[in-house]
């Protein structure tokens, strides 16, 4: 069974790698979006799925990465792959700065703080307009890099998933989950909960940071409202939740299924699609809080580390 799955996975990867050669520009962009969501949902899962600390402002890292990458490309002339890595690094730094104080907060307060963080960043970006263009947005030199970015985003998605797998199957991951189940007991057992949480938080910020910088380069233009929207945070959460939070492949499944579903719904029902999205969220929260993989794990006694 395992071998069959591995073969299928390899074939899939090969097909994805070959796609840009015979696919359309639109197809390339769409799949690239799926890669992005896999990276985002998977990253969110690292902090919130594993430790239970709900990061309700995770798009802040995406936005921070987007602006870092865009500024480096537009003002300092850096090549975009390096700028993308810088975006990831900047997000990591931001995660430390934010995580240090905020991870000491309890559940709902952490969620609210993260929500506030997103807004603070947006306001700061608008304020420092000399650097960021403020409300005008930031325009990058025209460059058609859709295919290279497709590959890089694909690698990012793989990297996040691989990192997820490594963490979930490691003692580090086990300790994170212990924190999720009962933080006090974890402390009592000698786990340094604060540093573990911080570590997970850092790792969860890298993916969105790089993805943000790549997206900025791909779009060629960013403005504050488009890179810090709450809807992006909620979408990545719902994707992870749908697939199964706390699992490795849950976010991947959720990203793929929900992205495709959204495309279909939005094409057919443009005027009511927020309503349908809202209904979907309600359904997922109420009916399948453990997600698809969670259900399967329960029903079929699947291993914990999928």
């Amino acid at each position, binding site marked *: 069974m395992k071998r069959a799955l591995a073969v299928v996975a390899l074939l899939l990867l090969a097909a994805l790698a070959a796609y840009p050669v015979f696919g359309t520009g639109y197809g390339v962009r769409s799949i690239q979006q799926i890669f992005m969501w896999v990276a985002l949902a998977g990253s969110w899962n690292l902090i919130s799925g594993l430790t239970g600390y709900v990061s309700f402002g995770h798009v802040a890292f995406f936005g921070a990465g987007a602006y870092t990458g865009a500024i480096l490309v537009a003002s300092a002339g850096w090549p975009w792959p390096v700028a993308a890595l810088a975006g990831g690094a900047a997000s990591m730094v931001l995660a430390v700065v934010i995580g240090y104080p905020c991870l000491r907060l309890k559940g709902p307060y952490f969620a609210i703080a993260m929500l506030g963080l997103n807004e603070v960043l947006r306001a700061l970006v*608008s304020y420092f307009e000399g650097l960021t263009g403020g409300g005008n947005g930031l325009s990058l030199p025209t460059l058609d890099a859709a295919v290279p970015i497709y590959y890089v985003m694909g690698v990012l998605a793989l990297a996040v998933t691989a990192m997820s797998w490594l963490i979930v199957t490691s003692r580090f991951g086990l300790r994170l989950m212990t924190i999720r189940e009962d933080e006090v007991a974890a402390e009592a057992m000698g786990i340094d909960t604060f540093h573990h949480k911080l570590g997970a938080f850092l790792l969860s910020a890298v993916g969105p940071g790089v993805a943000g910088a790549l997206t900025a380069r791909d779009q060629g233009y960013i403005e504050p409202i488009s890179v810090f929207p709450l809807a992006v945070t909620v979408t990545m959460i719902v994707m992870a939740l749908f697939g199964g939070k706390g699992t490795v492949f849950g976010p991947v499944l959720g990203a793929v299924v929900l992205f495709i579903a959204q495309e279909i719904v939005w094409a057919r029902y443009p005027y009511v699609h927020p309503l349908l999205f809202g209904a979907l969220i309600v359904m997922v929260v109420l009916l399948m809080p453990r997600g698809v993989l969670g259900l399967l794990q329960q029903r079929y006694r699947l291993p914990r580390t999928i």
Partner: protein
Amino acid sequence: MNSKAPAALAVVLALAVGGVVPPAGAQGPIRVGASLSLTGTYAKLGNYMHEGYKLCAKEWNAKGGLLGRKLEFVVYDDQSTPATGVRLYEKLITEDKVDAVMGPYSSPITEAVVNVTEKYKKVAVSPLAATTSIFKRPPDKKRNYIFMIISPAEVYLEGLVDMAAKRGLKTVAILNEDTLFAKAAATGAAESAKKRGMQVVFQEGYPKGTQDFSAILTKIKAANPDVVAASTYFDDAVAITRQMKELNVNPKMYGLTVGGDLPEFYNLLKQNAEYIYGATQWEKTLPYPGNKEFDANYTKEFGREPVYHSAAGYAGCQVYFEAVKRAGTLDADKVRDALLKLEMRTAFGDYKVDEDGFQIAHKMVMTQWQDGKKVIVWPDELANGKARFPMPPWTGR
């Protein structure tokens, strides 16, 4: 082995048939693609623009179409987000393989989408992008295939400044929403004022969504300007006006960018809207050729009066089709040349662009509310009334 033969035969037949029948493009309709903001923040105005496109296509089809073929618009909803717009233009160009494209609504979305149209070298007439920086670029980043229809943001308040300077007013206070278009209009107004020897005593941006302008207006009141220029959208315009009355800020002239010219503005504010200047790209009473017909046809088709967004969409489409007709082909480079050379007056006003595709002929007009009616007061050659000056204090009315 046997089961494969019929399949192979079918494939061969299909190829043969496909080879014999000429490609659809040569005979079928001309498909023009666009992604418009049908939902989301810009929904209302995006829909108006769509209606302009539709009416234009209908009229050309009634006269025999373009290059002997019928015209058909393929429109998707970009949900008022640049990222979606970008993907949709890729879809239109690479999957739907449309014959031509027209621009989307709003400057931010146009700015993002332009990268796609330039990549595939498709001419994109962009009827509702008012930001100079989309068109005017440094030589190594020049864009070749986009064309502007409306007057740029920077000149929106030019009329207000011109009228103020002619009356010898000296000081201007400017407030603007902190977004692309509004900032450009504010910057343009400030430069315009300085050129005319006026002093900008206050200039500040406010975040989108602000509802309480007390602090800004308190500061403006303390600066005691002759003119207040507000670069806003509709809901801010209403709030700012009401709060100016509450705080008793009494400039001699008060003008708005977007919203001051909409009928709803007067309906909501009634007496308090009197004397207020609005800037508009177009009014149905302007003496442009075909304007009256456009107004009548639009009202008949859509059941309400057109606003400038519809007129701009209509005109943009007219300009593009005219250029294609003159070029005699849909080939992007030939159409581009035609658009660069073209000089035309539509129901919307004048069209002429410079070598960057930047609009240089179209004129903004300033309106003023007088006794519940919108009167065009500037420029003189298009005015149908005189401005009432100065604006009396709020408490005196």
